[in-house]
């Protein structure tokens, strides 16, 4: 049962944990480190961390160096700089913070500086846990990446910066200052937005051959979504710092980008339709169908990956429990069969017609 911010802060241990998280800033702390810092038992700290995450005061991310561990950070609305009591920081933060760029996650350059062209040793272990479930990307992702004329591509080449990024790493967060245009050479990147309570809505999964984040490159606005690497990725970035130079040198980039924007708009409309006009069961059915017939809308780009109920929940804007119930219902309706480690689609038309 989710608890709210005030309940979360009513407990002194949780306040201590939150302060420690806020003090640790971008580095974050693991449950084990916090337990040592505070001289408390780890199960107790883990319990309180889970409550803080529920309340949207803390954020958990996979440790890029060890995919099985989680690193916790104070949510961006917890003012890390404030040395005062946590309540004060949170009270500030409960005001709309949309205009303040998040400082929680370092801008892409800071994150990636240490990773660029590295051996990726840290990530190779995480690759074992997720990337192996990935098959070649299917689906409608004819974006900037593969849609560019070869000549344009060649001229862009000099500006592109390569990054190897391990699974779990955030590239940028919603509302960060704009980063560049990204191209996925291999791996997968999840783009999502999150609300004040930490609920996440997956917008799209960008797979090999596609690009993402064209919008801020052109309107110079803040990042519209958060990008997190799902499977160890080889990425190329067209850095925004060289934007003017790039646009001068490659004038037809704008034309190519228009095609990409058109695709994005269709994708966004399909997503809005799915989310506003379909019941959860219909959305879950649409995600399942991505595996056999990639289409825009919920779950775009997820086809061919191993999925979990939580991941589907983040795509359809619901909870894991509801997704589990929905899958059981779809099975009772004879549309799918849940087997050992897989879901078999029995009736593609039936699923497509499901609302």
């Amino acid at each position, binding site marked *: 049962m989710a608890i709210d911010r005030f309940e979360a802060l009513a407990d002194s241990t949780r306040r201590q944990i939150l302060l420690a998280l806020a003090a640790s800033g971008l580095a974050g702390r693991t449950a084990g480190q916090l337990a040592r810092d505070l001289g408390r038992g*780890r199960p107790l700290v883990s319990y309180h*961390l889970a409550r803080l995450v529920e309340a949207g005061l803390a954020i958990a991310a996979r440790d890029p160096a060890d995919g099985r561990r989680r690193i916790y950070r104070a949510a961006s609305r917890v003012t890390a700089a404030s040395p005062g009591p946590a309540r004060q920081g949170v009270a500030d933060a409960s005001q709309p913070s949309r205009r303040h760029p998040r400082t929680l996650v370092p801008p892409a350059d800071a994150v990636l500086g240490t990773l660029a062209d590295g051996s990726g040793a840290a990530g190779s272990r995480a690759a074992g846990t997720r990337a192996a479930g990935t098959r070649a990307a299917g689906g409608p992702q004819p974006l900037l990446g593969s849609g560019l004329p070869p000549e344009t591509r060649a001229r862009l080449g000099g500006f592109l910066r390569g990054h190897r990024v391990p699974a779990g790493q955030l590239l940028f967060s919603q509302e960060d200052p704009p980063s560049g245009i990204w191209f996925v050479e291999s791996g997968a990147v999840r783009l999502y937005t999150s609300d004040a309570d930490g609920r996440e809505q997956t917008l799209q999964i960008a797979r090999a051959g596609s690009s993402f984040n064209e919008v801020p490159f052109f309107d110079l606005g803040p990042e519209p979504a958060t990008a997190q690497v799902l499977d160890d990725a080889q990425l190329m970035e067209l850095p925004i710092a060289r934007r003017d130079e790039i646009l001068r040198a490659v004038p037809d980039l704008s034309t190519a980008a228009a095609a990409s924007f058109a695709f994005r708009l269709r994708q966004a409309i399909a997503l809005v339709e799915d989310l506003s006009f379909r019941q959860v069961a219909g959305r879950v059915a649409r995600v399942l169908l991505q595996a056999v017939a990639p289409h825009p809308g919920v779950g775009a780009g997820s086809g061919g990956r191993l999925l979990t109920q939580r991941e589907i929940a983040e795509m359809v804007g619901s909870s894991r429990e509801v997704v589990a119930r929905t899958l059981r219902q779809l099975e009772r309706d004879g549309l799918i069969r849940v087997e050992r480690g897989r879901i078999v*689609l029995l009736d593609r038309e039936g699923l497509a017609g499901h609302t």
Partner: protein
Amino acid sequence: MSLCRIPAAPTAVPPGDAQERAPRVELSVCTACGLCVMVCPAGAVGIAFAADRAWVPSIDGARCIRCFDCETACPEGAIEVPFEIVEQERTQS
């Protein structure tokens, strides 16, 4: 809470498909409550000993029947059971 059943010490499962698709346990949120050990109908959730805490659940991918019971039971949302999605034709051989 006492554990009802302690399966044989978990075998070190070789990396491979079975373990790749085994339920994943996010140890940093696991509170070692033992529910997953108790509910697993396949005896696939074993107990492993960790340096910095009493024990942690350890799932044997080869024994796991992917029933989702542990994921459903875990009060911390620490367990996730991955699955693939396939269409019927491809499964009939």
